[in-house]
């Protein structure tokens, strides 16, 4: 079993008390130790959270997600100065050479498309086209194979009518929720390792404060896709059971460096790996396989 996820669904009062988070629901109090917590998702709009708890949570590297009135993730908790060498690491991060970033991006896309094709294979769908695309991926993915692959892949998964830009589609809502959990989890590790999430590998949008998280999440996306295809039927709604399942995806085992690790630990390892690339301690970004 891995670290726990807390999912605050009912009106509750969250406070801090010697290294524990205490959750009060109408006089009934439960305490959970910080050492055991990985992610907290606060979905309820009426919950109260104390400032002491907020500051301690950010100190303890815990991923906290707050939801808006539509119950979709709207904000995350990010600490400052979590790493004693933050400035040094961020300087190094900005100075990583362009060719190296291009190579890393190529590697990320190869793994992403590879994972996508694995998801299709598991569902006994046709993945030959994706496999043929992998060999065409060049440095920095100049031909934008990523987009070509994604277009084919989503149509293959959810049918010809499917579009990722359709807000009405239940699949999109669930995919977005799952991606948001993964993204915030990566962000937490980035800050803990002293990296700046704004300076990405390939994503360089001026409007996005989490470019690097969006880069590193790419190979992880198929995990959420796989879940959605298997479990979501047309007439379903995004209910708490699905959200709990999405949180459990962080415990899924993947193969990293020929070892079985959970997704959450794998994210941590990849972020640590990227940090050492920035500090010129290692060359290659090792990624995982489904």
């Amino acid at each position: 079993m891995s670290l726990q996820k807390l999912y605050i669904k009912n009106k509750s009062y969250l406070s801090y008390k010697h290294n524990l988070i205490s959750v009060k629901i109408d006089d009934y109090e439960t305490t959970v130790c910080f050492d055991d917590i990985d992610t907290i998702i606060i979905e309820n709009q009426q919950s109260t959270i104390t400032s002491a708890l907020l500051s301690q949570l950010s100190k303890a590297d815990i991923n906290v997600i707050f939801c808006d009135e539509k119950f979709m993730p709207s904000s995350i908790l990010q600490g400052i100065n979590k790493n004693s060498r933050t400035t040094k690491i961020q300087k190094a991060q900005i100075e990583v050479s362009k060719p190296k970033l291009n190579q890393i991006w190529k590697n990320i896309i190869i793994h992403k498309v590879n994972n996508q094709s694995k998801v299709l294979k598991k569902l006994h769908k046709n993945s030959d086209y994706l496999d043929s695309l992998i060999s065409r991926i060049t440095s920095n993915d100049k031909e934008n194979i990523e987009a070509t692959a994604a277009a084919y892949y989503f149509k293959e998964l959810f049918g010809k009518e499917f579009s990722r830009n359709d807000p009405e589609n239940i699949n999109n809502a669930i995919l977005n929720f799952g991606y948001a959990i993964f993204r915030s989890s990566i962000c937490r590790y980035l800050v803990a390792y002293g990296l700046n999430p704004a300076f990405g590998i390939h994503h360089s949008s001026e409007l996005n404060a989490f470019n690097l998280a969006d880069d590193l999440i790419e190979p992880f996306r198929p995990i959420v896709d796989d879940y959605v295809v298997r479990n979501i039927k047309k007439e379903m709604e995004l209910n708490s059971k699905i959200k709990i399942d999405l949180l459990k995806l962080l415990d899924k085992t993947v193969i990293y460096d020929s070892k079985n690790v959970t997704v959450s630990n794998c994210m941590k390892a990849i972020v640590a790996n990227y940090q050492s690339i920035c500090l010129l301690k290692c060359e290659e970004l090792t990624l995982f396989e489904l």
Partner: protein
Amino acid sequence: MVLFTMFDMPTNTKKDIKKYTKFRKKLLEMGFIMFQYSIYIRFCRSLVIAQKYEKKIELAAPVGGSIRVVKITEAQYKNMLVIENYREKPEKKLLKQTQAVLVF
């Protein structure tokens, strides 16, 4: 794994009491819950983690107390015979901690 910590400590002088409260607070910080008077338990995800907390207790142990730490599997814990449970049920709290996602 369920980690049981049982201790006896002298409480004759003010100094002793201070030592005792300090130790008790450390236990609570580690995530132990009071099971009965001077018996504290904690649910641990794996043997490795249970051993980690054993070491932590060893470091936090004050001079002049006697502490015993026992590891019990969940199966054994579930078979516990409870007679006259008049205090709040720590069993409930512990069962909660064994789920992957805690829903409140």
